[in-house]
């Protein structure tokens, strides 16, 4: 009798909402870089540019934490979404070993996402490494809403192997400029040098809007350039996350206090990258804290 009840309960419990995504493919883009397509209508139907998801990459206790990935692109009608990642540690190494048809515990979409610019400005995208993954669906959405708008992607990395997803942008009609530190592709130098040259060479910077994603140190330089040329800049931040849903306060970034809540002496204010972001107005961030 008890065994029977146990089985009934066990079957019922399977219906509980543990969301799973099925791996459609997991393919190499470049040395150490992968693109994974996940079938998960629950997440792709709610996804928006700049939002992210977390995956539990192992059913065991190592690694312990879920891994966050920005949503590269998605198709709500077909129920899939793609992520792009680089193998940097145990978690992403395990990810790279996942095969077609396997199921992964997924949570998402999370975070605030980008606000699609509505004015007539030219769009500059500045991406470092896998930061490019946060900007593709943004470019798709901008082009879908504003046919023929001029978008330029500046992307940079250590070498040609770090320059990924360029073809996807070019196919959409986005102009792509590349900088590599070793000169193996595009201009030799840093992405921020390339951005500086672009802004310097552009006679009218007043109708340019900048979106950027990548390592925080790079974003800091991008934000400084945007400030120097007085152009609006939106950044998508990466953070070391504990929960991904705003509870643990692990991934916070220091911001300037809201002048309306000013207290004396001014209090340090941290905002959660996972819940209040990952997309922030660059002017809001206290870049000196990085």
């Amino acid at each position, binding site marked *: 009798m008890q065994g029977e009840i146990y089985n009934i309960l066990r079957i*019922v419990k399977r219906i*509980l909402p543990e969301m799973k995504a099925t791996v459609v493919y997991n393919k190499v883009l470049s040395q150490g870089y992968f693109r994974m397509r996940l079938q998960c209508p629950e997440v792709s139907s709610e996804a928006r540019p700049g939002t992210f998801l977390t995956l539990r990459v192992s059913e065991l206790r190592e690694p312990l934490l879920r891994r966050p990935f920005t949503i590269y692109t998605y198709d709500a009608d077909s129920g899939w979404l793609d992520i792009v990642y680089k193998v940097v540690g145990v978690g992403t190494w395990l990810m790279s070993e996942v095969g077609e048809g396997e199921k992964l515990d997924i949570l998402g979409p999370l975070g605030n996402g980008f606000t699609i610019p509505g004015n007539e400005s030219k769009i500059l995208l500045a991406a470092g490494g896998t930061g490019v993954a946060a900007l593709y669906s943004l470019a798709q959405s901008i082009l879908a809403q504003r046919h023929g708008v001029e978008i330029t992607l500046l992307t940079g990395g250590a070498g040609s192997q770090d320059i990924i997803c360029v073809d996807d942008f070019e196919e959409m009609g986005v102009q792509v400029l590349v900088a590599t530190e070793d000169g193996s592709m595009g201009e030799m130098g840093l992405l921020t040098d390339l951005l500086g040259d672009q802004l310097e060479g552009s006679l009218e910077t007043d109708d340019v809007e900048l979106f950027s994603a990548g390592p925080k140190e790079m974003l800091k330089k991008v934000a400084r350039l945007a400030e120097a040329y007085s152009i609006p800049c939106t950044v998508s931040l990466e953070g070391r996350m504990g*929960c991904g*849903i705003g509870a643990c*306060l692990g991934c916070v970034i220091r911001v300037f206090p809201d002048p309306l809540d000013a207290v004396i002496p001014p209090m340090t204010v941290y905002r959660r990258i996972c819940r209040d972001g990952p997309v922030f107005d660059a002017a809001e961030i206290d870049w000196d804290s990085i």
Partner: protein
Amino acid sequence: MIRVEEMSDIDSVKTKPNLEVTIGPLELSNPVIAASGTFGYGLEFSDQVDLCRLGGLVVKGLSLEPRPGNPQPRLAETTAGLLNSIGLQNVGVRAFLEEKLPELADYDCCVLANIFGESPEEYMRVAEMLDGAEGLSGLEVNVSCPNVKEGGAQFGTDPQKTREVVAGVRKATRMPVIVKLSPNVSDIRPIARAAEEAGADALSVSNTFLGMAIDVETRRPRLSTVTGGLSGPAIKPLALRLVWETVNAVNIPVIGVGGIVSAEDALEYIIAGAHAIQIGTANFMDPLACINIVDELETYLLEHGIQDISELRGTLAEK
């Protein structure tokens, strides 16, 4: 989501084992409580978790004034563990009462407020402000945060100071008082007894263990504060020992906290003598961790023909 309660056509409802537990003056629908600092103010999880199914939840530690918390980096993942140095970032007790608690009141859930202060007087003040707040079931007094100078650890490592803080809070509130003890002591028993004698209704044993990690490329500590609190499966055997020792040293209920990610982990604590357990880091691995553990506990009781979870408590066999 299908709840067990809704399966009225299934026989199992009649034989459903009893998971209710009593912790001093507190009555919980089950022994699984979400631990402070890992569950925000509860609301962060409300999209993922049916809060009504929790035995209880303890909100992020509250102080008299809001606190910004520590600089980055605040987290470092270690083998089967997580080091943190959040630094008690919180909205302060007033904002909690005005903004968070009223929203939490929409859920039929036992909400406990974790509190801390820089002085025994501040603990009392916070306790007074929370006393009798609608939607709040009790207080958890944190004398054990390792990450800030004023986080209470200076009280929780000394029996006399623990007694002073707990006696003050006891005077300031009519609500149930749980004291969260520090594991970073040579002997937890005198501190547990001091809290009991000062009027604690129950003890949470314990908090994170002091630890550190180093990046060998940069030779920098992985946390901005160099040391931090270790949680996760790595600490479970350590915390279990402390719970077992504490249970044998006091006559008030003990809530086991440390590294629980499964019902099996929870059962170890209950067999060692814990009345209830708290789930912390596992909430990050899976937001449904608490709910899954409630379900798995029920399954275990069914499988073993145990009608009431209390029958298991403190049943550690001689070897």
